[in-house]
C-alpha cells in the first residue's frame, strides 16, 4: 500500500460563462433566441474578461485543465497562483463542494475543508451552541465536540461571551470562535483556503502556530494563501498554478521564486516606452522617452522582493540645449500620492543637458516597504520650477513581503509606511 493519500487524475473543470448570474428559463430562452439568429450569446459579454484557455467554443472556460498530482501522507502542500489561476476551484472540487467535469480524484481518510471560517454560524444562537453546529457541519460528532469544548473555548479567547448570541459579537470575536472550532478538527486531511487572513495580528500568529501544529502532527494539509510568507512558513512543497493549469510543483521557496518571476512574464516588463499621452506638461524642449524598471542584474521586472535593489533606467531626449534645469523622479504609492522624490543631481544644483538622447540610471537601495508603487518623472527649470516634461505616474511595480533569501521577509499583515529609513539604533538599560 502506497503512502499517497490524495491522488488527482486528469482533473478538468469547465464553467459556462453564459451561466454566470443567470439560470432562469427566460434567460435560457433569450440565449437560444440569440443563437438561432446567429448572434452572440448576450450574456457572454459580461464575462468576456475571464476568457482563458479557450477550447472550441468561446463560451466555455476551463477553470482547471488536466490536473494531476499526488499528495503523500503527512505532507503540507501549498498551492500558489494568481487570482483566477484555479486554486479555489481545485480546493472546492477536493472538498466535494462541486464536482469535476472530467477526471477525478481519490482520497484516503477523512477530509475536513475550511474554505471559509464560520460556515453555518447562526446569529441567534450562542457561541456554545454555534460550536456544536459548526463542528457538526465540519464533520465532528457530538462526542468529539464535547470532549474538546473547553479547549475550543480557551483557544478562541472569548470565554466571557460564550453564552451570548453570536449576533452580539464583534467581527473579531466571531472569527476567533469560528477558527477555534476549525482548528480542533481531527481529520486526517485538512484543506484550508485563505483562512489565516482573518483576525488581528496576534490571532493570525496563533492561527499560523496552530496550523503548524496540525502539520507537525503528521496530518496532511493542503493550503491556499496569497500570503506567501505564511505559505513559506507552513508548506514544504507547493504547486504552482496558472490559468487553470498546474505548471510546476516542488519546494515552496523555489515555487515562490517562479511565481514572482512568472508574474513578470505575464504582465510584461514595467515601463519601457512612455507614450506622449502620459506627459501632462510638455513644452517641446525635452521628453522622457523610456523608463525601465530593472533588478540589480539588469533584468526587467515589476515585482521585487523585499529589500531588493531596484534600478531605474531613464531615457531623456533633449531637443535643444537646456541650462539651469533639474530632473526628478518620484515614487507614488497605490493612492497616487508622492512618497518620495529623488533628484538626478543629489546636490540640488542646476545642471545642463546637451542636445541628444541621455540615459539616466537611478539605483534605489532596499528602502521601500512592501506595497504597490509607480514612478513620476519631472524635468523642470531649476529656478522657476516650471515643468518642461512631466509624467504623473508610470511604470507600476510591486514590492513583495517576501525576501530573496527568505530570512528578512516582512512578517506582518499590515505594512506601516512606505520607506525604511536608514536608522542607527542604540539601546541601553538606563533604569
Amino acid at each position: 500500500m502506497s503512502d499517497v493519500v490524495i491522488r488527482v487524475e486528469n482533473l478538468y473543470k469547465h464553467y459556462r460563462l453564459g451561466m454566470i448570474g443567470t439560470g432562469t428559463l427566460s434567460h435560457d430562452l433569450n440565449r437560444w433566441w440569440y443563437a438561432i439568429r446567429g448572434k452572440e450569446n448576450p450574456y457572454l459579454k459580461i464575462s468576456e474578461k475571464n476568457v482563458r484557455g479557450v477550447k472550441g467554443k468561446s463560451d466555455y472556460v476551463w477553470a482547471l485543465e488536466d490536473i494531476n498530482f499526488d499528495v503523500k501522507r503527512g505532507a503540507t502542500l501549498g498551492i500558489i497562483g494568481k487570482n483566477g489561476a484555479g486554486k479555489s476551484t481545485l480546493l472546492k472540487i477536493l472538498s466535494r463542494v462541486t464536482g469535476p467535469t472530467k477526471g477525478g480524484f481519490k482520497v484516503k481518510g477523512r477530509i475536513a475543508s475550511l474554505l471559509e471560517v464560520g460556515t453555518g454560524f447562526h446569529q441567534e444562537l450562542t457561541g456554545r451552541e454555534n460550536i456544536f453546529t459548526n463542528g457538526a457541519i465540519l464533520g465532528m460528532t457530538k462526542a468529539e465536540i464535547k470532549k474538546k469544548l473547553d479547549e475550543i473555548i480557551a483557544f478562541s479567547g472569548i470565554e466571557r461571551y460564550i453564552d451570548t448570541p453570536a449576533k452580539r459579537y464583534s467581527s473579531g470575536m466571531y472569527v476567533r470562535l469560528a477558527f477555534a472550532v476549525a482548528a480542533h478538527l481531527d481529520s486526517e486531511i485538512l484543506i484550508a483556503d485563505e483562512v489565516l487572513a482573518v483576525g488581528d495580528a496576534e490571532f493570525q500568529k496563533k492561527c499560523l502556530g496552530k496550523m503548524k501544529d496540525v502539520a507537525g502532527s503528521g496530518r496532511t494539509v493542503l493550503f491556499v494563501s496569497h500570503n506567501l510568507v505564511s505559505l513559506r512558513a507552513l508548506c514544504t512543497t507547493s504547486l504552482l498554478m496558472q490559468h487553470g493549469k498546474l505548471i510546476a510543483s516542488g519546494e515552496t521557496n523555489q515555487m515562490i521564486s517562479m511565481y514572482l518571476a512568472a508574474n513578470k512574464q505575464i504582465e510584461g516588463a514595467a515601463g519601457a516606452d512612455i507614450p506622449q499621452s502620459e506627459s501632462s506638461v510638455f513644452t517641446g524642449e525635452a521628453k522622457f522617452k523610456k523608463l525601465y524598471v530593472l533588478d540589480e542584474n539588469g533584468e526587467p521586472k515589476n515585482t521585487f522582493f523585499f529589500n531588493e535593489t531596484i534600478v531605474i533606467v531613464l531615457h531623456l531626449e533633449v531637443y535643444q540645449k537646456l541650462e539651469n534645469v533639474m530632473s526628478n523622479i518620484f515614487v507614488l504609492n497605490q493612492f497616487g500620492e508622492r512618497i518620495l522624490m529623488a533628484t538626478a543631481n543629489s546636490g540640488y544644483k542646476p545642471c545642463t543637458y546637451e542636445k541628444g538622447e541621455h540615459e539616466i540610471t537611478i539605483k534605489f537601495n532596499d528602502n521601500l516597504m512592501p506595497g504597490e508603487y509607480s514612478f513620476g518623472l519631472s524635468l523642470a527649470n531649476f529656478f522657476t520650477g516650471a515643468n518642461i516634461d512631466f509624467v504623473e505616474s508610470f511604470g507600476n511595480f510591486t514590492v513583495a513581503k517576501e525576501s530573496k533569501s527568505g530570512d528578512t521577509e516582512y512578517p506582518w499583515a499590515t505594512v506601516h509606511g512606505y520607506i525604511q529609513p536608514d536608522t542607527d539604533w542604540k539601546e541601553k538599560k538606563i533604569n
Partner: protein
Amino acid sequence: MKEKETTEHWDVVVDADKNRISINIRELWRYRDLIMQFAKRDIATVYYQTILGPLWFLIQPLLTSLLFIVVFSNIAGIKTDGIPGILFYLSGLTVWGYFLTSFNATSNTFVTNAAIFGKVYFPRMVTPISKIISSLFIFGVQFLLFLGFLIYFMLFKGLHMSVNIYMLLIPYLVLVMGGIGLGAGIIISSLTTKYRDITFLVTFGVQLLLYLTPVIYPMTEIVGKKRMIILANPISSVVEGFRYAFFPVGQFPFKHLAYSSIVMVIMLFAGMLMFNKIEKNFMDTV
C-alpha cells in the same frame, strides 16, 4: 500499475466519467449528529425574540380551524360527519400541516442552503432529513393541542369515544406523510436549482392541494368521479385514516393507504435519484 491501484482502498472516489448514483446511507448515519443539530437549530431559532415563542405553533392551526368553522361549517354548511367542528378541522389540519411544513421546508433545500453547500461538504440529504425531524416536532406540539381539545370534549361536552385499534396506525400514517413530504420536497428542490419559476408554481399548487385533501370536508360526502380525483391525491388517505382513528365513521381506507405508501416509496426513490444527480454540480448553476 492500474491493477495494483484497484487493490488499494480509497475512502472517497470522485470520478466525473463514472457518473454513478450513490445513496450512501452509512455516510448519512455518520452525520446523524449534524441532522439532530440542524433540527434543534431550526426549532430553537423559530421563536427567538418572539414573545409567544412556541405558542405560535398552536395559534396557527387554532385560528385556521376557527376560520374553517365560520366559513365552511356555518356559512357554506359543509357537514363534518357529526364530529364537533373544532375537532374535525384540527384533526385534518394537524396531519395536513405535517405534510405542508415538511414539504415547504425541504422544497427549497438547495436555494436556501447555497451558502453553506458552497463552502463545506456533508451529505446534502442531511438538510432535508433534519427538516423532516424539526417538522415532526411541530407536528407533535400540534397533535398535543388536538388531544387537549379531544379530552376537553370528552370530559365536559359528553363526547363519547372509545379506544380503537386504528390508533396504533397513527405512527405509520405520520411516517407516510413525512415520506411524501420529503419525497415531493427533494424532487422540487432538485428542479428549482436552475429554474426558480417552479417555486411560484409550487406555492400555488400546494394551496390547491389543500382543497383536494379531505381536510375541510369528510370523505363520506364525496361520491363518484370527484371521489376518484381526491383519492388520487396520496395525502387524502392519510388524512382520512388519521381522522378515522379517532372518529370511526365508515371504513378505514386500507386500500388507499396502500396506494399512498407505494406513491411515497416511488417519490422518495425518484427524489433521491434526482437529488443525487443535482447535488454534485448544483453550485455551478444555483
